[in-house]
């Protein structure tokens, strides 16, 4: 019951944040030089003032600002994020077309980096001065310091150009029509390099974090008790210690989601992965403001939803947290 109440409270906070993103979007749209009429005029190669005024009336740009804002909210609530004159499509359609590719990349990178990071961290924590521990230290430094797009390019040069194990970019091989299992396999084959590139930053982060918190937990009394009971090392590490050592990892996993979305923009550009990031970069080159702001809103939505899920997961792993204070840690 309390779980439900907290979840509801979290949801309302998330909605508030999204509303704030919308206000920001609206302000940016109005502060940006040039409006819809200018865009259309530019496309048409110049229009006279009469027609431009008509266009502004059609789009409601002559209304008071607050009225325009309410109208904008109303439209967004109906999933109408405006029209892209560059792509000649509604922004929502454009975004929904590209969203699955981005979600696939983001989620797989997050899952892989948590798994690899935690395993490395646990191995390193069991022998604090061993080879694995030094490896984690070096990995966390290197993974953080290398620009993610640079890592991607180096991986392309190594594993797609010099040793052609993986394709250099895109999500599917367009020269062959594939269906069913072959299609999935093809997508996964294309996914490997971009996913590893994006995961590289976060593997570094999680392994270091998991190592530190595992060291903490392994020194605590209840682990010593478990060891004294004569449990096997496997049971002590994985059944008793890991659950608590995971908590900081889960907290961080929630916090870095917006970082993952940012990283995905760069990685998608390097690998011409057909997701929201590539769309955003193209829209920026084309000065397609509705599309850019639509992407900003949708990716904020992704982050908010991810945060909500992380928060719920956290409270499942650690039932002691009954209050709504998890985000404050």
């Amino acid at each position, binding site marked *: 019951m309390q779980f439900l109440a907290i979840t509801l409270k979290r949801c309302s906070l998330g909605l508030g944040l999204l509303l704030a993103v919308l206000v920001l979007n609206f302000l940016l749209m109005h502060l940006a030089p040039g409006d819809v009429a200018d865009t259309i005029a530019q496309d048409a190669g110049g229009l006279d003032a009469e027609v431009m005024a008509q266009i502004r009336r059609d789009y409601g740009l002559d209304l008071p600002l607050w009225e325009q804002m309410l109208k904008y909210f109303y439209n967004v609530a109906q999933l109408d994020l405006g029209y892209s004159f560059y792509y000649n499509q509604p922004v929502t359609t454009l975004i929904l077309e590209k969203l699955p590719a981005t979600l696939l990349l983001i989620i797989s990178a997050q899952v892989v980096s948590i798994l690899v990071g935690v395993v490395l961290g646990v191995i390193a924590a069991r022998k604090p001065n061993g080879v694995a521990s030094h490896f984690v230290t070096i990995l966390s430094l290197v993974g953080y310091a290398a620009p993610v797009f*640079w890592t991607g390019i180096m991986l392309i040069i190594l594993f797609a150009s010099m040793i052609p194990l993986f394709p250099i970019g895109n999500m599917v091989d367009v020269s062959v029509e594939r269906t069913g299992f072959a299609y999935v396999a093809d997508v996964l084959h294309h996914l490997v390099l971009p996913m590893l590139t994006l995961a590289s930053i976060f593997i570094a982060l999680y392994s270091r974090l998991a190592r530190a918190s595992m060291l903490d937990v392994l020194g605590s009394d209840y682990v010593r008790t478990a060891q004294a009971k004569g449990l096997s090392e496997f049971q002590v590490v994985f059944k008793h210690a890991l659950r608590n050592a995971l908590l900081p990892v889960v907290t961080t996993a929630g916090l870095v989601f917006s970082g993952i979305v940012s990283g995905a923009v760069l990685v998608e550009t390097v690998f011409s992965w057909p997701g929201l990031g590539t769309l955003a970069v193209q829209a920026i080159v084309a000065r397609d403001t509705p599309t850019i702001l639509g992407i900003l809103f949708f990716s904020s939505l992704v982050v908010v939803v991810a945060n909500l899920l992380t928060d719920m997961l956290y409270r499942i792993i650690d039932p002691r947290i009954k209050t709504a204070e998890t985000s404050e840690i």
Partner: protein
Amino acid sequence: MTDYSIQERLLQPTSARVEHPLIETARMFAGNRAALSGLAMLFIIVVVSLAGPWFYPTDPFEMVWSPFSPPGAKGFLLGTDYLGRDLLAQIIHGGRATLAVGCAAALLSVFIGITFGALSGFYRGWIEETLMRITEFFQVLPTLLFSMVLVALFGASLGMITFAIGIVSWTGVARITRAEFLKIRELEYVTAARSSGASNTNLIFRVILPNSLPPIIVQAALLIGFAILFEAGLSFLGLSDANVMSWGAIMGNNRPYILLHGFTIMYPGLAIFLTVLSISLIGDGLNDALNPKLRKR
């Protein structure tokens, strides 16, 4: 990893002379080999970036040879870029802008972060509530996308890029500052200062802030590295000041030619990598030196 037993600790001679904490910190930093090598590396990078243009005056914008000459050709140590411009000159001259944007953006975000953290940690109540909601908002906002939007809409000048980076990277500093303030405001010396009539401004700036600086300093050092990476990312996507050469801009310029001429991206990327690596090493060293309790990790 040393685990002193009680007897051993009792046998340790107690030093009669108490060192100044700054000297102790410096001594601990100096004993950290990784941090020292980071410092040396960063020193070299900064000196080359600041003084290099005088010793290697080739104009980074001038087309000097045929495009994509491989490293070493015709005396161009690192080769030439897609317009036949000297890559070594670009890297030497580009360091200034990269470091300047990194430092300025980090400074801006530290300023915003301390303001938010200090106010919400000190006053609590509705001020804290409001400021923390704003902090949460900036945590949810996909940072790179938001900066891209800012730079794209308002022009890719060096100032705008710095602002766009600084405005999205302060949330960590705000959280840390707030946590420190929450902890320190309850300590006895703060109560003592308060009861002796110190004003709120005095309490914040003279009493609590100086004592909460250590973790903020560490975070600020790391933020410079973060800002440099961020600038590189923006430039790579084409959002760089066209009149200024920076390491990110070199990579952005040569982005379409990754496969055939990887070296044009590899070297500037290496420069960024080494810079951020040295900053991280220094940051870790500072962390160990300033928070001795965490040292045994």
